[in-house]
């Protein structure tokens, strides 16, 4: 019997020894955020208590939103560690803004700040500071971007892509010499590049980049650049009207004959768009060294001037990894002679390596950051809040006929005014089937 009691004693010791630590190493954090206006040298003070801060968990999609106190501070308690998009936004009405700043304006002024893909680590105790900047709003806006294309079997693949620009002002504007560019940035993959902490290219490390400029904040870099032709007043655009630039200005719903003489048809015309009414198209058939796609038919629609290109036509990335700017240079600058730089590779680039065109953001009229549709494919933001505080995307992803479209803000005397707060997350929605000149 003695052995039995020894056994029980041993068993008791074993059980005691097995007691485990039943706490986790991770706890939710109190996320402290402080916002302030980026107007330190202005001599006036703008109110903070209407600033709304929104935090969005990139993975789970859960959102919290609240106003800051009059010091611009807010604490989100019990916040799970993770990756967050943090956005701050405030709109000051015109009268108030004019009174405080003595800068006369007739439109409300919107300030944005954002910190995208922000890692809130385990045990985070610091504070995130956001600087509110007034977005540049212009008379021209990018209204619709159909980058996703349509079904690769039943639709028109990517040959039906287009981009639409809109006169959001109350006066006639001229599209002549208006430029737009497909903006490049670091996507993913082997890290052979000099990168910023944000994960984007550090352009200041590009070969030959001048040291006396802010290469990362004052410029964006294109991989394709186009210019609308014209003599200066050749293409007037009425208030509330738009121009559509198509990859191919043809009715993609109907059969057409490609440059190789073969008839191209779509199985399901409802998936694609009629671009025969586009204002401009791109044509690569006359570009040196390009073997254009058979769909690159040179129609009667005027062609845009192709200043920089890649591939066999104006093909937008159907995954949404590149972004777009609309700009117009002043008389001091020739778009065709803008400086060009290599990607900021760690190794010295080859002489034949692709170059990007450096576009000063002071010429940018509107910018829209596009991102892939799923959180795990998100890439580092290319644009600063001064250009676009947010980003947009088509929810279904590539080849699903969807386009991103700027929301209607209001209608004034029959003229539709599109929303432009310089934050495409707020300003853009999507269409299930792209619709040139449509509204949402």
């Amino acid at each position, binding site marked *: 019997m003695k*052995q039995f009691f020894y056994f029980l004693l041993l068993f008791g010791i074993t059980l005691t020894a*097995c007691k485990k630590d039943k706490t*986790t190493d991770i706890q939710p954090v109190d996320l402290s955020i402080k916002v302030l206006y980026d107007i330190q040298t202005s001599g006036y003070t703008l109110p903070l208590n209407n600033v709304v801060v929104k935090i969005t968990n990139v993975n789970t*999609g*859960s959102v919290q939103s609240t106003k800051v106190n009059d010091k611009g501070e807010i604490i*989100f308690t019990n916040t799970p560690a993770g990756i967050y998009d943090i956005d701050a936004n405030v709109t000051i009405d015109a009268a108030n803004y004019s009174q405080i700043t003595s800068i006369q304006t007739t439109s409300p002024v919107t300030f944005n700040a954002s910190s995208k893909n922000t890692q809130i680590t385990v045990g985070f105790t610091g504070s995130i500071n956001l600087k509110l900047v007034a977005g540049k709003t212009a008379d021209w806006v990018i209204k619709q971007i159909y980058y996703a294309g349509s079904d690769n079997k039943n639709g028109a693949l990517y040959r039906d892509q287009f981009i639409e620009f809109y006169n959001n002002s109350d006066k006639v504007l001229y599209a002549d010499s208006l430029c737009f560019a497909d903006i490049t940035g670091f996507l993913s993959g082997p890290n052979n590049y000099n990168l910023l902490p944000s994960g984007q290219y550090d352009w200041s490390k590009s070969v030959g980049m001048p040291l006396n400029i802010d290469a990362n904040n004052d410029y964006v870099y294109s991989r394709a650049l186009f210019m609308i032709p014209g003599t200066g007043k050749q293409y007037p655009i009425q208030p509330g009207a738009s121009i559509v630039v198509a990859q191919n200005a043809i009715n993609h719903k109907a059969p057409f004959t490609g440059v190789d003489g073969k008839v191209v048809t779509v199985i399901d015309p409802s998936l694609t768009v009629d671009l025969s009414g586009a204002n401009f198209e791109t044509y690569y058939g006359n570009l040196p060294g390009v073997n254009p796609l058979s769909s690159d038919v040179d129609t009667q629609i005027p062609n845009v001037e192709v200043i920089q290109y890649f591939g066999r036509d104006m093909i937008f990335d159907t995954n949404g990894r590149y972004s777009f700017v609309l700009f117009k240079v002043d008389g001091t600058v020739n778009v065709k002679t803008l400086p060009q730089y290599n990607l900021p590779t760690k190794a010295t680039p080859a002489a034949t390596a692709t170059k990007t065109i450096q576009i000063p953001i002071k010429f940018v009229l509107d910018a829209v950051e596009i991102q892939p*549709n*799923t959180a795990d494919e998100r890439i580092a933001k290319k644009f600063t809040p001064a250009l676009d505080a947010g980003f947009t995307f088509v929810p*279904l992803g590539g080849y699903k006929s969807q386009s991103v479209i700027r929301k209607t803000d209001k209608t004034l005397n029959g003229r539709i005014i599109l929303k432009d707060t310089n934050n495409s997350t707020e300003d853009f929605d999507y269409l299930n089937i792209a619709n040139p000149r449509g509204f949402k």
Partner: protein
Amino acid sequence: MNRNITLFLLLSLSFNRLLAQQDSVQKTVQQRQLFFTDSVSSALFNFSKNSPLLIKELIPERISRISIGQQLEKGKLVNAQGSTKTNLSYLSSDGSINLSGLKLYGAFYYHKVFEDSTRFAHQSRNNTSTPYYYGSPTNNHYERSIYNFNTLATKDFLSNKISAGVGFDYHIADHFSNNDPRGSLKEYQLDSKISLGYNFTENIKIGGGLNIGYGKEEVNIGYKNRAYYESTAYPRYVNYLINGYGEPDPKLTNRNYTNGFSRLGYNGTVKILNTNLGSFYFNINQVEEKQVYDYRTSSGIYDLSKYNLTKLNLDILWTKKLSKGTISSVVNFVNWDGADFNTRFLAKNYVYTKNEINLKIDYAKPAKKHLYNYTFSLNNFSEDRLDGITGNKINYNNITFNGNFGFLSRLSNYRSISINFGTHYILPLKDNFFVNNVTEKLFTQEVIIYDYLYNTTQRFGGSITADYSFPFFKFMQASVKLNMVYTDKVGMKTLDRNVTSLPGKDRFSSNISLNLYF
């Protein structure tokens, strides 16, 4: 004439001997069938499977049975990741034999399961404490093919002073859903026990040894409809990666992983037999299980998560022959402690604890042509889940009372009939519920909150089992068994928050089987 008489006498004698032999065979196989209708014998038989060192005393020298059956479970009074309708067909067989002092027990079963509506669980049903798995909100139709092989063997050496025992459990299964998202899970597990015992006397024996095992799960989620994985625009078809006990992340690409298991632990057995107070059996089994989740490509293997689970089982059996019957009492203590290593945050995020205390008392009272079985059991079950990222902390503790009364009547010609009535009542004792409402989305609402409500719901039910047994092909005993269980929801908590999904009213299960004993 004399010759004829002699022949007649010889034939008669042979025939009578044949009849007697036949009679003896039928009696033997009926006794084997009756062994399983005796609640105490069954309790001892089941207890013996804990260790190879227990089968010598607790399993008959020779017994075999084969069962084929069909089980249907239906009703929405089920945990969130359970199936609201399950159809199970099974074939099982087990038996024991003594080959020159080598006592062997072997078992096999095959289950074919059809689950009608499984949600948020692209999982097997035997690793449910894990924090790392895939799940989808839609109702998946799951098919599972499960094979289990178990063997236990023991032999005494050195004038019966030393006992050696080994045991092997091999489990192989294939689980898949035939609607989007199409989960596919292939698994195998191999566990072994190696034990050595020292017999102090004929009646006091002690032993111990090692538990060693390993296994693998390969999980893959496929789709027929590409649109369901190209975006999160169809939320019910999104494949989520559950990694802890909070809101999961959509996992649209690289939807596969491998989970490698390794197990190491110890076992111990003490037997104190035939005392004035009866016989006592103590058994302990402990296993430290390590689960390593990884993603494999041609360019390498990437760690996704780690989960360590310590399982401790302590079982105590007491049995004694009383003046009018036999009594047995089994006390069983189960403790599981699990903790993960979250590779995203490089820290422990998830903690799991399960504690279970079972007490089961069986009393079997034979009469002339009858057998009465009385069973009473108590089960105290508690489970804790802690998720660090969200701060979610859920604990519940409940107790199940179970009472059964059975009656068996022996009929003529080796036939018998038995009927058993049971009742059960599940009473929640205490609980703790903190779910971070900042992160609350679909998984929180439809799994975490739902399960909390289910596990803290009072339930009451009853069961009835009828069994008719008869000789079969003269060398076997057959029984046809029908069993029905009904459980009803008696009372449920209310929560002061948005509740989108509630456990259903009741659950019903039925089972019909043909069992052959030989």
